[in-house]
């Protein structure tokens, strides 16, 4: 429960004290206040779910029942029928005061369980204390039965069986990678250009499918030949798409019915009755047909998200709400004047809250790596239109304002900055940052458009439609540009590269020979030998992950199947192929590089102190690392303090960064995705730096096994960027943000006092202009003082609404583990 604010304080007083969470509470409408406080938080506290959160057995059971029943159907059809059964029969609800509806679980406090994804995850669901619905014994029995049924036939089981066994074991050790090689746990882009720009409802799509089916059937009853053989499969897929689209329409109409029943039989308040009838009208219209106003448009979008998540556990939420819903806002608020700005703000705020509510059961590694949230819902704002003109509109501003009122940690925003962004919009971004939300993160639009063209060959106009596919990576929302399945499992624990280079490929933490044997480091004569060993480990590690993902993607239509997402894709509607099939997908892959900068600082430290200064021998260093630096503290401090560190504008170490990136970029072009495109790296961490803290061994940058890794991307080590923010940006600016990788995350902590008032905005604006000039693609800010964070650690109840930027996402400070909290506090406060 949210603690009560000091009622006797004015908004001005609270603003002066920078207690933004109370300011928000005082400023937002009664409706938003109710909705915001009533929502169940699905993100885990550190590692565990909050009390009251329950596993959704209803949906899992409904799904499994129908899946069992249709066991002879082809996979797309079988899944479509199971999904339709869930949508037709699960419990639905409408929360008091709400105007938007739809949740993917059956009750507000349940977390959806993707029962057909991975039996490992299913076993974790069984083992998770506290989340079993009462009576617990019955639930456990039920879960055990479901697990028994699904064991061996989930999507990940199927992929794991056919992987090379060595790859499978090493990947599943958890030491080098993250995520699961299946779209059951993917991040799916959505073809928004087809849906929203194309103004299509589900009925329009069904019509297009029917036309395609007719056309195909002409061939299957025509001249025999090899070219018609795969049409039979496509026809099945088309049928599956229609089936699930129709179920979606029916599902929405269940809400319409419920709203009408409430309005006619239960509701006594006239105003609320009207709202309920509006909900009914909205759900009768969408998703069947294209939206006509803002509420319908937002509701349509939300239904699409819910249905996609009923089909798969989607870990991200790529969206560009201001761009696609903006025309409706403009029509309702500015032209027809059917909505006041305040009413629109209520809708926009609730739209964010409805997304915040969404959360599925996630295994512990995912909860630890994404502490406090349920997935990376990074929504994209700003940017340019297809013709390059400024795309910001009134809804951009409304979203930024609503964010400060609802203060959710999920979704967050990434703002596509470009030189034509108007000052008034930039000020709204700054206000969000100044209010300590940690978002929007600032993205350099012109640069990222160029980057998308460079790596994946997206044409200019398509590249300009980009949205954040997860935290960081841009992806177009077009027919051939949208990526239906990005798998987190191409996420590399990069610190292992230098660790293995020093230990001949052996992992002392896991106790296995993991990487290739690149030689006994004690016998290396110069830095080059070590560096070449690093290159081999880097190639091995990224290749292994990419092999796994490529296979997962290639086999996904056979092992999983996505009828709903296919129905959302122009490519699939046209071709009848499962959308995950690589055919016709231009490719938009990237290797997420967790714990990347440790490589740079470690290599630099060895180069300096062992090979250049000859202060220590390799044997000495290896002994110290083997002892986890125990008994070598003086030497350890030498490696921390007297070796150059990334982020201080020092070419000695910055050049090593560039070498590492360029070797990796070279290898990125060698590795190919199923569509034949490259695999650039993207350094960022979420909270994997904490998850991996005990999995990465001691390193020459001076860390021990157990220490939090750096907070990620290309951010310098906490407290090691001693020359201030300009030096950090200068170092980062040496990286070619177009050709060295896909995107580069940078965290900055700024001092709240410096950024107060107009001069604070001017300072920030000059900072951002310089950031852009230096050619960086990303920066995000924490702007909460140490004092506040310390106070929140001591008194979490009182500070339950303090939000911090973790890495790539924001979280409520009290929801993240103590180690992560400390890690955030230790990030250098810049700009004092």
């Amino acid at each position, binding site marked *: 429960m949210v603690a009560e604010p000091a009622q006797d304080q004015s908004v001005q007083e609270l603003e002066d004290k920078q207690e933004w969470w109370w300011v928000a509470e005082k400023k937002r409408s009664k409706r938003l206040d109710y909705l915001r406080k009533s929502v169940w938080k699905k993100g885990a506290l550190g590692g565990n779910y909050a009390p009251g959160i329950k596993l959704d057995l209803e949906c899992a059971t409904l799904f499994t029942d129908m899946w069992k029943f249709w066991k002879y159907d082809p996979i797309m059809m079988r899944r479509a029928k199971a999904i339709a059964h869930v949508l037709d029969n699960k419990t639905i609800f409408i929360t008091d005061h709400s105007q938007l509806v739809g949740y993917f679980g059956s009750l507000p406090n349940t977390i959806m369980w993707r029962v057909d994804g991975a039996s490992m995850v299913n076993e974790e669901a069984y*083992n998770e204390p506290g989340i079993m619905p009462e009576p617990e014994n019955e639930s456990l029995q039920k879960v055990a039965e479901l697990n028994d049924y699904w*064991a061996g036939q989930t999507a990940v089981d199927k992929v794991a069986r056919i992987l090379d066994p060595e790859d*499978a074991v090493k990947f599943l050790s958890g030491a080098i990678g993250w995520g699961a090689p299946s779209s059951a746990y993917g991040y799916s882009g959505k073809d928004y250009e087809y849906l929203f720009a194309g103004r299509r409802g589900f009925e329009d799509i069904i019509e297009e499918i029917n036309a395609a089916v007719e056309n195909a059937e002409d061939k299957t009853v025509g001249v025999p030949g090899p070219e018609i053989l795969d049409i039979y499969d496509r026809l099945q897929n088309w049928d599956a798409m229609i089936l699930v689209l129709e179920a979606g329409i029916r599902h929405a109409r269940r809400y319409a019915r419920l709203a009408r029943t409430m309005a006619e039989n239960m509701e006594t308040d006239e105003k609320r009755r009207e709202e309920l009838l509006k909900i009914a009208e909205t759900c009768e219209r969408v998703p069947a047909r294209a939206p006509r106003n803002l509420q319908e448009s937002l509701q349509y979008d939300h239904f699409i998200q819910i249905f996609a998540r009923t089909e798969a556990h989607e870990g991200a939420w790529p969206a560009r709400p201001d761009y696609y819903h903006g025309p409706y806002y403009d029509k309702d608020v500015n032209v027809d004047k059917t909505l006041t700005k305040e009413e629109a703000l209520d809708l926009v705020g609730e739209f964010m809250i409805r997304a915040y509510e969404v959360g599925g059961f996630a295994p512990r590694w995912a909860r630890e790596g994404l502490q406090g949230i349920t997935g990376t819902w990074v929504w994209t704002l700003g940017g340019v239109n297809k013709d390059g003109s400024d795309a910001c509109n009134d809804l951009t501003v409304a979203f930024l304002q609503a964010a400060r009122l609802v203060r959710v940690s999920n979704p967050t925003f990434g703002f596509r900055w470009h030189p034509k962004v108007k000052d008034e919009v930039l000020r709204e971004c700054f206000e969000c940052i100044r209010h300590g939300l940690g978002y929007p993160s600032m993205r350099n639009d012109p640069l990222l458009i160029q980057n998308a063209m460079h790596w994946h060959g997206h044409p200019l106009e398509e590249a300009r439609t980009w949205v954040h596919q997860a935290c960081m990576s841009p992806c177009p929302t077009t027919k051939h540009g949208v990526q239906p399945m990005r798998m987190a499992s191409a996420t590399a624990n990069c610190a292992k590269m230098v660790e293995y280079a020093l230990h001949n490929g052996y992992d002392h933490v896991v106790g296995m020979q993991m990487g290739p044997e690149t030689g006994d480091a004690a016998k290396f004569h110069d830095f080059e030998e070590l560096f070449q060993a690093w290159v081999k480990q880097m190639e091995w590690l990224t290749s292994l992950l990419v092999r796994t993902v490529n296979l997962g993607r290639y086999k996904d239509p056979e092992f999983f199947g996505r009828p709903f997402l296919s129905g959302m894709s122009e490519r699939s509607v046209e071709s009848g192929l499962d959308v995950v099939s690589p055919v016709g997908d231009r490719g938009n892959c990237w290797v997420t590089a967790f714990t990347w900068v440790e490589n740079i600082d470690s290599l630099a430290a060895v180069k300096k102190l062992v090979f250049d200064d000859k202060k220590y021998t390799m044997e000495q260093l290896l002994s110290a690392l083997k002892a986890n630096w125990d008994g070598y503290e003086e030497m350890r401090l030498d490696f921390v303090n007297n070796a150059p560190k990334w982020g201080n504008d020092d070419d000695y170490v910055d050049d090593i960064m560039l070498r590492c990136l360029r070797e990796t970029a070279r290898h990125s072009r060698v590795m190919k995705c199923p569509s034949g495109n490259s695999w650039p790296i993207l350094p960022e961490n979420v909270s994997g730096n904490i998850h991996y803290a005990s999995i990465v061994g001691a390193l020459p940058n001076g860390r021990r096994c157990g220490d939090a890794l750096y907070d990620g991307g290309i951010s310098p080590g906490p407290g090691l960027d001693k020359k201030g923010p300009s030096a950090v940006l200068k170092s980062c600016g040496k990286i070619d943000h177009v050709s060295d990788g896909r995107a580069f995350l940078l965290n900055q902590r700024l001092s709240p006092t410096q950024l107060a008032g107009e001069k604070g905005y001017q300072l920030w604006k000059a900072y951002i202009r310089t950031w852009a000039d230096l050619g960086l693609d990303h920066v995000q800010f924490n702007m909460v003082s140490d004092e506040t964070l310390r106070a929140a650690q001591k008194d979490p109840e009182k500070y339950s609404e303090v939000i911090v930027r973790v890495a790539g996402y924001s979280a409520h400070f009290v929801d993240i583990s103590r180690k*992560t909290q400390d890690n955030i506090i230790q990030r250098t406060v810049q700009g004092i």
Partner: protein
Amino acid sequence: MSRRSQWKQVANGMLGDVSKARSVEERENVPEKACGFCKNFSENAYASDGRGYCRKLKVGSDIKVTPPVYVMEGQASLTVLFNSDGAGCEYFNRQDLIDTDGNEVNDPSYRRVQRQMEKAIK
């Protein structure tokens, strides 16, 4: 043994047995000398459902048979479950369990599968 068959053996230990149907009893039962209570147990960083590695024994070992088979050399560790019975293993080395509430984030040397551990320490 070919590379493939050697790793296949490890993979089976990780995937095969664990994925096979088990009853509530099999899941809940924690032997007195469960591998999960041993200092040599390292929980898999990828799955927190009780599967993990033995840091002493390598693949090919079998502690279920009498006398147990101990393989100390090799590329890959023996995979065991938290509630595998370690009674017959001469390397069993009980450790005090701390952080039993699961709130703290991953520390594979100390973290143990939650439900069974909570039951066992009560």
